């Protein structure tokens, strides 16, 4: 990326201080959001989200697998993010590994809850096919196509929409006398198991530049940040995860303040996304 000159940096910081950012937004305003579902027909569910110039694609694929011994009544979900070099040349080769890992872990923490599976956004027990023998493994893949800041929010939104679009085929399991053999699984074409994504949280990242924090930073603004807090909030206003990035230390009161702002902003974001999802479903049905 081309570096910023002093003048530009000053301009950005000044603008934020005066609640008028470089592209005309206020501090707590999101860029125009575009959402599409079903972009990857081969996947069970997929979505494409554009936040301004940031573009990400999320896909959900379901495969049959065996549940772990520890949790024989739960399915498995894994989230993996990949940054395509089309987004930025530094993502070439292994350059994207750090960022991808960071994003993947952050998303996992927000969406999947703790180690025991408590507080997960998706009800894992709904993924079970035959207790102890067969369950669905969900593989959620995110791909960053174009990067202009605020990747985490876009990815979380994409995953939420993709999950709403996901249809898991209905399975008929036929048991036979053998207990240790593979159960015969018959897949029917009539789907589905649709997820209830109303409890899937979104992530709102608040970036602190100078003394103010902004929502949905572009990459230029992100280059000026001192620290950033990503808060994952679900529809009921509960906080599902919290990540702080950046070197500068923050006063705890500032953090509380940021969290409440995030809650407030996220409600609007969630309702926006939900209406998008509903609109998409309506189009599907007709």
């Amino acid at each position, binding site marked *: 990326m081309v570096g910023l000159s002093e003048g530009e940096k000053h301009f950005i910081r000044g603008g934020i201080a005066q609640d008028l950012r470089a592209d005309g937004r206020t501090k707590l305003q999101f860029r125009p959001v575009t959402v599409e579902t079903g972009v990857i027909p081969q996947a069970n569910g*997929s979505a494409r989200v554009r936040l301004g110039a940031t573009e990400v694609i999320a896909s959900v694929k379901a495969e049959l697998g065996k549940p772990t011994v520890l949790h024989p009544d739960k399915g498995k979900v894994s989230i993996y993010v990949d940054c*395509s*070099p*089309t*987004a*930025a040349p530094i993502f070439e080769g292994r350059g994207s590994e750090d960022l991808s890992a960071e994003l993947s872990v952050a998303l996992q923490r927000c969406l999947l809850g703790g180690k025991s599976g408590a507080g997960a956004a998706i009800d894992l027990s709904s993924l079970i096919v035959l207790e102890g023998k067969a369950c669905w493994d969900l593989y959620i*893949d995110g*791909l960053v*196509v174009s990067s*202009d800041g605020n990747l985490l929010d876009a990815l979380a939104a994409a995953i939420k929409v993709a999950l709403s679009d996901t249809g898991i085929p209905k399975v008929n399991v036929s048991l036979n006398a053998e207990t240790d053999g593979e159960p015969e699984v018959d897949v029917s074409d009539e789907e589905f198991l649709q997820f209830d994504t109303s409890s899937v949280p979104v992530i709102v990242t608040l970036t602190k530049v100078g003394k103010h924090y902004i929502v949905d930073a572009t990459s230029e603004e992100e280059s000026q940040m001192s620290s950033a807090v990503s808060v994952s909030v679900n529809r009921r206003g509960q906080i599902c995860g919290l990540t702080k990035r950046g070197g500068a230390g923050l006063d705890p009161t500032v953090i509380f303040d940021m969290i409440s702002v995030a809650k407030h902003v996220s409600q609007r974001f969630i309702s926006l996304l939900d209406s998008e999802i509903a609109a998409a479903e309506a189009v599907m049905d007709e």
Partner: protein
Amino acid sequence: MEYVNPLTGFRVDGRRPNEMRQLKGEVGVVSRADGSALFEMGNTRVIAAVYGPREVQNRSQQVNSKEALVRCEYRMAEFSTGDRRRKPKGDRRSTEISLVIRQTMEASILTHLMPHSQIDIFVQVLQADGGTRSACINAATLALADAGIPMRDIVTSCSAGYLCSSPLLDLNYIEDSAGGPDVTVGILAKMDKVTLLQMDAKLPMDTFETVMELAIEGCKAIATYIREILLENTKQLEYRRG
């Protein structure tokens, strides 16, 4: 399996043996890149982004400083194939295709006009349904044109095969996995020169000539289509300029 129905002459998806899949191309999909394009051939969907010409990042890679360094990376998304791929980058096939694309595009870019610089071509496959190599080259051509990098000619590519005793144009994944020969051809459209020729499996010589000619015809048709897209893109730019 009957890849070409003997009673009707149609292929599995309803095309005739000498018909291509539906093409779709779009320029300027990644705004941050210098040039980018999306290209679809049937269900194969590919995004190409070009960054450059810019400063050489790694001096050691540069062989000839009087010419631009062209680098290419090919990546497939995990969800691009029917089975989820566990290792989307760094495997041998991706390395080979990256090399192939690089060599093909290098033949066309006027590298001597941009010394001491490098041009990066990144190709990301979103959906793979046969013919990914060709789609990538076509997308790269569009992206390079969008980036304004000087080229000798448009490079287009198409694949053809031979199943059930008839040459088939533009194989999709099922036809590709049938085990028959698969000929991929890349040409410089106006100059009528072949820059890429790959084949796997066996084919007798005269049949090979027929199949290769069919692929070249396909390339020329794609070239016409690409020119149309670029023309319309230019018109749009002109319109926006006012």
